[in-house]
């Protein structure tokens, strides 16, 4: 398994040498979407908390970094950590509010919070420039490497994606990750065993919002423009779809799901006029044939084909 991962990584590193600029840019977007979906998967898959407001962290960190550099004239060395820190702090607050409930209540609270942030971005024109969005942004150039170049930017995103996924893997495979899964499956039992269920969930929520903020930072670097639509329910829902389609509660699932969503949205839409419908059909197909998601579904299929135990 590990050998496969290394092979895949080597392939991804080589991508800019054998594909056109368009595919490199598309791959960068897929990676950003993958980080975002993976961060949401921490909540949906491992903590069993379905959030419909994750786009807030993507948008907040993008807006904060854009605002600091445009209005305060600060450099990327300051805006990037500031955006991550502030967004994570907001995540602490939002987690404190949303985790008063679980299940549907949690979903509605995250949705409500994200709508507040979205509405604020639309209407607080003095800060966010409203519907015109913030433009005139730049990409950073760490160590003098110009990330305006799409290949350089792709490698930059790839490094961060690997780091983010590695940290998620460490997180969920640690003893803490095991207790987290425990609170998902048997929260009453965990509580009576003396675990602080609320605390475990809150820490996960905060970590998840931090990774969401990381995706937001990359998102604004890629687009060099930010508009309130990035915080809309559609963006949250798309990430949730990616997680569920790929396989929630698995490491590779959200990555595969995010790639699927991005490819359908950005690539297939060039050939299929009714790409929204195509997307719907694909998801219905996944839900019917592989209810657990693409990754677990494919693995089960492979095992069955090899004749091994189910």
């Amino acid at each position, binding site marked *: 398994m590990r050998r496969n991962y290394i092979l895949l990584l080597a392939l991804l590193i080589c991508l800019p040498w054998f594909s056109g600029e368009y595919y490199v840019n598309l791959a960068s977007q897929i990676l950003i979407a993958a980080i975002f979906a993976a961060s949401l998967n921490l909540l949906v898959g491992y903590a069993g908390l379905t959030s419909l407001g994750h786009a807030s962290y993507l948008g907040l960190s993008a807006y904060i970094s854009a605002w600091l550099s445009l209005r305060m004239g600060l450099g990327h060395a300051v805006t990037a950590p500031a955006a991550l820190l502030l967004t994570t702090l907001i995540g602490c607050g939002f987690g404190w509010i949303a985790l008063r409930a679980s299940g549907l209540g949690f979903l509605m609270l995250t949705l409500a919070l994200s709508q507040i942030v979205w509405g604020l971005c639309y209407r607080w024109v003095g800060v966010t420039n409203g519907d015109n969005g913030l433009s005139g942004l730049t990409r950073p150039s760490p160590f003098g490497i110009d990330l*305006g170049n799409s290949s350089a930017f792709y490698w930059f995103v790839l490094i961060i994606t690997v780091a983010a996924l590695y940290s998620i893997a460490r997180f969920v495979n640690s003893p803490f990750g095991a207790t987290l899964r425990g609170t998902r499956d048997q929260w009453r039992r965990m509580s009576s065993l003396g675990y602080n269920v609320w605390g475990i969930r809150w820490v996960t929520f905060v970590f998840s919002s931090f990774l969401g903020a990381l995706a937001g930072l990359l998102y604004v670097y890629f687009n060099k423009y930010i508009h309130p639509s990035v915080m809309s329910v559609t963006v949250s829902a798309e990430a949730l779809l990616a997680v569920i389609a790929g396989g929630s509660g698995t490491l590779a699932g959200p990555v595969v799901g995010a790639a699927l969503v991005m490819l359908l949205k950005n690539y297939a839409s060039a050939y299929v006029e009714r790409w929204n419908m195509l997307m719907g059909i694909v998801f219905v197909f996944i839900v019917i044939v592989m209810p657990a998601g693409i990754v677990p579904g494919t693995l089960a299929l492979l095992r069955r084909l090899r004749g091994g135990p189910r």
Partner: protein
Amino acid sequence: MAIDRRQFLQGAAAAGVGVAYSGLSLAQTNEPIRLGLLTVKTGPLASGGIDMERGLELYMKEHGGMMAGRKVEVIVADTGGVPATALTKTQELVERSKVHVLTGPLAAFEALAIDDYIRAQKMPILSVAAAEDMTQRKPNPWFVRATSSSSQCSHVMAHYCATVLKYKRMILIADDIAYGQEMNAGFQRVFEENGGKVIQKLFPPLTTPEYGSFIAQLKKDADAIFLGFAGSNGFRFIRQLNEFGSAGKMKIVGGMTALDESVLRNMGDEALGIPTVCWYSADLNNPINVKFAPSFRKAYGYDPGYYGAGTYVNAEILNAALVSIGGKAENKDALMAALKKTNVQTARGPVTFDTYGNVVGNIYIRKVERKDGRLVNSVVHTYPDVSQFWKYDPKAFLANPVYSRDWPPAKNLE
């Protein structure tokens, strides 16, 4: 899975290289000019976006798919009305389809989202979107707009309301998006400088299902109300105004998209007599439009409006520019210079561009009438050669902040 994708990408890359080499080896004239259309075919903005595609499609059909003696290949991209997708689609058109020139997008925020990229790629674009600053405080050298800036038409309407209709006290209402805010701000400035007073400004959200709470707020003693709506909102507002029994009690005037031909076909007698302003009307009587409008109607069953005419006029302008440089669309600098020097008769009348890349052209005051059993915006008055700066000096105009909800300040609200 990984190998499949690699094979696929290699194949695609090989195909891309193949296309590039064949392009080098063949004479330039054998290769078609590739024109990318950025439009919206899904989501709430789709009706205008589909009209954009139809306008261009009709032009190509009428001209045998040729411009300046070369075949033209139109590549359509659906942005879904989402800024981030607009950027991806522009990258797709430029990097993968290798287009020579772009037309579109529809919405202001889409134009703003691709602004940086257009500059970096030096890609000529004939826009349909109205965002003011794209040709004002942050002019993009690769951007020309033959339609109108947000306030270009509302300046004219304000002048007409103050001087011809003699209105003194008016209410302004528009969608709460940059386009609506800029349009109303331009209206307010010219109207108040010509002796009128704006006594109320309302901005309902873009997707308001029900205007009742806004209609209830309307000041009863106003002379008239100006509608700065886009899409189908103007039509819905007027219908609900009637349902509230306010028909005939409040005079209505409209901006350039309030009673567009694309929604007019769904309206009834309540629309009769309403004056609106636009840079085009399907009823326009010039040699080009008397052919264009009927053939559009014949092909699609309704009159062309802002969006359908927008891409048609853009195609006419592009064709003229290409003819003047011998069809060499590959030379972007020459194409851009030729576009900026445009001086051509189009379906909207004569078109030239100012130094910022925005159109200077006729603006028409129209009035809804019934002709041959259908409603049309028939032209009642023409303001010739109107600039985006109205009658102001461009330098003085640009020294002010961009039009918004708060600028210019409304001093006469009651």
